[in-house]
Each structure stands twice: as C-alpha cells, then as structure tokens.
C-alpha cells in the first residue's frame, strides 16, 4: 500500500463533560477513500473536523506526511496552513451568499494562496466546467439548486488544490434526484486518485467509491476493514444492527 498521508492515534475530543471521541486510531493513505459510517452522535463529524483542525483535539497524536502536528503548540497561521491543504465540503454547502459563484471558487486562491486574479479566474472557470456549471459562473448561490450549490462547494474546495478532501454528509441535505450528480462527481474524483475521507449514511455510495470503511459507535471505531467485509458482513453487533436498519 502507498504511504500514509494522515494518521490519528488515540485521539480524544471533549466538549465540556461530553467526551465525543474516546481514543480513535485512523490511518489514511494517499489516493485512498475511507468512509466513516455509524449512528448519529457517534463522533464521525467531530473526527473529520479534528483532522483539519477545525476542532482542536484534547489528546492524542496527529501525523501529517510523516511530520507530527503539535496542534496544542501551533500558531493560528500554522493551523490556517494545515486547513488550506485539507479541503472540506459541508452538509449545508456554506457558500458565501454575497459572492457570485465564480467569486466563491476564487476566494481561497486569492486570499489564502495569494494567486493573481487572472490565474485564479482561469482555474475557477476550469473547475466550474469540470463540475458541470460553466454557465453559472456569474450566478448568485441563491439562484442555484441544492445539488448545484454542493458542486460549487466542491469546486471551491478543489480550487485550493488540497491533499485530501473531507466530505461531511455532503448529500444529506439534497433532494433524491439531485444526489446522483454530486455522487458521480465524487466517484470521478476518487478514480483520479483524490484522497478522501467521507462521512455518509449512503451505503450504496460507500460501496461504490470507498476502499475502506470504518464503523463508529460512541466515540470509537468499533469495526474497520475492506468495504465488502464491513458493509456486507459486519462482526460487531452494533454494526450489524445499523447495517440491517439502513438496508431494510
């Protein structure tokens, strides 16, 4: 297997008295698609947000490309730098409503990477073309459907040329007929070798794109392995119940 891009060891995260992550170990290899599934409140989203330091963990180790990430001692600028190389897409898109579609995609390259406007605009047009929204460059986000907005959000994340894409239930808020467009796009990215960590409830999508699946319950990864084993034939009891409920 290829080398490890991001590794978490014994990761803990508490919100007040509530311990959401109770010691998580996770390795993500380059060009690998890892899917996190599990019931609501099991800590999937929190784990994802700890990986790009949107949440700062309380305990445990993070290693990026062989270099430790000393999150407790990092300056705000260093944290920003780590977030810039890890793209994230949210359930509710979170596009900037006061900026046109093209400007949403250009925002990161312009303000964070310091790219020239012309360069950023060319890249943004290419990315919009790629997600199938070349004709919507001048539109406002509020004029787009949910599926279109989510594809803009993916383009916005890709514009930063990230090493890994973190996807947090990106199709959960979409109408059924709009899901396929987003899923097709993600599957294509996976085929091209984009490293991805995916939180989803969509088992067919997990089956389609992921290499490995982790099942989380109550702040721990209770089962992990190749997608066929975990989805089709889970060993842990909680995992069996969950899969049964989802596929019934």
């Amino acid at each position, binding site marked *: 297997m290829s080398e490890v891009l991001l590794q978490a060891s014994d990761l803990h995260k508490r919100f007040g008295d509530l311990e959401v992550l109770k010691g998580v170990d996770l390795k993500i290899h380059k060009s690998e698609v890892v899917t996190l599934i599990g019931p609501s409140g099991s800590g999937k989203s929190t784990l994802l947000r700890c990986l790009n330091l949107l949440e700062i963990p309380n305990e445990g180790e993070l290693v990026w490309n062989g270099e430790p990430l000393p999150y407790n001692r990092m300056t705000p600028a260093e944290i920003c730098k780590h977030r810039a190389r*890890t793209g994230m897409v949210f359930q509710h898109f979170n596009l*900037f409503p006061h*900026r046109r579609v093209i400007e949403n995609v250009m*925002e990161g390259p312009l*303000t964070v990477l310091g790219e020239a406007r012309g360069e950023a605009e060319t890249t943004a047009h290419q990315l919009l073309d790629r997600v199938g929204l070349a004709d919507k460059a001048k539109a*406002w986000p509020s004029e787009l459907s949910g599926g279109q907005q989510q594809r803009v959000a993916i383009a916005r994340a890709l514009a930063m040329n990230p090493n890994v894409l973190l996807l947090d239930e990106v199709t959960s808020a979409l109408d059924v007929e709009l899901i396929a467009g987003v899923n097709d796009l993600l599957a294509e990215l996976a085929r091209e070798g984009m490293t991805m960590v995916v939180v989803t409830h969509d088992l067919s999508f997990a089956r389609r794109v992921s290499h490995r699946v982790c099942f989380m319950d109550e702040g721990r990864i209770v089962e992990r392995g190749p997608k066929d084993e975990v989805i089709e034939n889970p060993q842990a009891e909680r995992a069996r119940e969950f899969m049964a409920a989802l596929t019934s």
Partner: protein
Amino acid sequence: MRLLLLICAFLVAAPLAAQDDLRLAMSGAFQPFSTTDEGGNLVGFDADIATVLAERMGYRPVLVQNDWAAIQAGLKTGKYEMICGSMAITDERLKTMHFTLPYYVSGAQVFARPGTTSMQGLRVGVSEDSTYAKYIKTHVAEFPDCTITQFGSEAEIVAAVTTNKLDAFVSDRIVGGFYVKKGGADIAPYGPLLYEEACGIAARKDEPELVRKANAALFEIVQDGTYARIYDKWVGVQPDLDVLLKSWGDFQQHIPHEEAKTEPTEVSKEKPGFADTVKSMLPLFRTGAILTIELSLLTAVIALLLGTLIGIGSTAANPLVARLSQGYILVVRGTPLLVQLFIAYYGLATVLNDAAGSEVITAFGAALIALVINTGAYNAETMRGGIRSVDKGQWEAAASLGMTRMKTMRRVVLPQAFRNSVASLGNNLVVLIKDTSLVGAITLIELTYTARNVVFQSGHPFLPFVVAAVFYLFIITTVDFGMKGWERRMMRSLGGKRAIA
C-alpha cells in the same frame, strides 16, 4: 340649538373655573431671583414675590418653571397667566405684553477678568434672548472684535468662564455677582453699569385687569414692608425704595387704563405677518440646517467606522477586547446624550484646550465627539447583532479554506453583517439627525435652536417650529431614500430571482 348653547357655556366656564389658580412662570435658572431647591420647588426673590402677590390678589399661586427662551410663547399660548421672572421692561416687549409697575430695578454689568484694561478681542458670553444680548448687538463699538457666544443661563456662562471658554460676560449686576461668588470664577465687575433696567411682571394684552390687581398688590407689599423683607432675604441688602418709586413714575404711561381694555385679537393684529417673518428668517434657518446636516453627516461617517470596530471588538475571541467593547456600549447607551454633550463641552474640551494652550476643541468639535461616541455605541450594538446573526457555517467554510479570523471577518462575515444591519443602521442615522437638536445646549445654533430664536423674535409661539419640522422631514426623507437604495443593492445577492433575468 340648546346643545350648542350648552357647549358655549362650557367653553366660557372652563377658564373661569380655573381662575382660582394664578399661574406665574419663571426660568428657575436666575439666582438669586429664581432657582430650584433640593425638592425641585421654585424658590428665590421672584418666587416669593409671585407667591405673595398672587395671594394678595386673591388667587392660589402656582409657580411654573419654563425655559427662558420659550417663556413668552408659554404666556401667549395660555400655559400661565403671568411671567414673574425678572423680565426687564422694554419698549419692544410692551408692544406684545402688559407689564406691572417695576418690582425691582437693577442694571446691566460687564464682568471681566481682574486686570482687564480693554474689551478688545475678548470672548464674551451672554444669556440668549436677554436685554443684554440685545444691548451688545446694538452697541457693537463697545465690544470691538469680541466673539459673542449665547448661553442658556447665567449658570452655564459662569461654568464657561471657569472652564476658560470666556473672558467676560454681560448680565444683571446682582445675578452676575451672585453666580461669580457661587461658581468661584476669577472674574469681577468691569466698568460702570451699561444701563439701568426695571423688571416687571408680564401679562397677556387681553388681561389688563390682572395687571391692575397686581399693581395694587405690589403697592400694598411695598407699603407694609413685606417687599423689603423678601428683598433683604434674597439679595442681602435693603432695597433702595427711592429708586424703585422713581421707576414707577417713569412707568406711569404704560399702566393699562380702563379704556385700553383691548380685544384679544389686538395681539395678533400687531404681530408681523408670518410669511414676512419666515422670509426674513430663512437665511437663519438655512444656516441652522447646514449646521445640522454637517454635524449629522460627519458624525454618521465616523460613527459607522467606530461602531463597526467596536462591534467587531465586542465579538472578539480575546476576552479583554470583548469586555472593553461591551463596557463601552453599556456605558454610552446607559447615559443620556445631553449629559454626554455637557461632559464633552465643559469637561473634555476644557481639559484638552488647557493642555494645548489654545482652543483645539471648539463647541462644534465637542458636539462631534459626543455625537460620534453616542451614535457609535448604537451602531456597535447593531453591528454586534449583525455579526452574531451570520451563520456559523460561514466561519467554518472560510476557516476550512485556511482563511484567518481577520480575513474571514473582513471578507465573509462583515459584508453579510452589514447586509443584515443596514435597516437598523439607517434607523440609527435618523435618530442621530434628530438628536443633533440637542447641541443647542452647548451654544451651537442648529435648526431647533434657530426655530427657538425665531419664536422669540417673531412672536409666533409655534409656527417657526413647524418650519423647522419641515426642514427635518426633508433631510430625513432624503437620507431615508438613500438608505433604501443602499439596502436594495445589498439585498440583490439574496433575492436572486430578479438578478438572473
């Protein structure tokens, strides 16, 4: 028909029923003649004279405190029957009011710094609407190159002297002396009395009977020694009755006679036409309006910047910055603008000017500071709400791109916060424009103050205020129109359906 008669009877009877009370007005800001005690009651020479006279006339005295600038308007509009407020008898005032015999004689006195040898170039204060102000206006040669500033009361003049905003002032010799002693100002009478003046009790032209009764009562209390006792109590010396009686002789011709009993309409006949008055006053209104607009616009721009900064500060992650910002909002919103104006003018401006050794903060500067600080706090509170109402997902999306907190605030959150707040900010601006009407309290003659001056000069009790209202309405409607346009521009990115056409 009978019903109509009944209504008429009521209309006539209502004022008669109130005749048991005799309401007498005074400013309450003219020690030792009229002031207020700890309980807020009017006391002083004028107050005692008014009380005793009303009782001798067979009425129950009711003392009314009224702003000096509006005291004649109050009489005309029937808020009280008489003014017993150290009003000097002048030919001009005799045209619109009746006066009793003089009830004391004093004179106008210049007060200046000890050692003053010439009036050349001094900063001179005077009470607005006073005979002293009129004297200065008509005797310019006696005040060469002087800067004349009008104040609302003698107390404010002495405060301006002690805070080094004035070198000299003109006032009644008794009143001025009293305030100088009380305020500890380093200032003394300069030169001889400018002129003597006699003060009388004023009544409407249609009430000569009231004046006759008051004259009889005045004669009575002078004779039985009550007058001398009251005079001694407040002024500190026995009155010179010879001077008073001489003034009565001079005043004889003005005593209203039986045949002079006039119709109520006579007053309005003597008034100059309103159109003419307004026309002649329009340049004044224009000057006032320009000051109002200048002050409003300048404040609006600076207060928007300040409010935005403080608004950001109040949501800052740094607890010290957040606390300081929130404390600022709390303190400023928790105190009245008028108080802030006085602190800025008599406190801050004085300290800074003394430190600099010259007048770096003018009255306009002090007003600007107070208005900016005040409006800034309201804008900050508005912006705080606007920032808070931006969805948390916006912060996360920007953070996930690697944007810093500052950059996120500037490029993502603030634009949306402005969009959320633009209506409230516009509202703050409208409130600000109306609040500028308070700066008259620190000698700036803006729209409202202009209207008050015109009321005094024209004798129209309220129409100049209507003119001022029209000016305000025009300014505010214009501003409102502009704000609505801005709001539409801001909203364009939200209501996308129109923009896509």
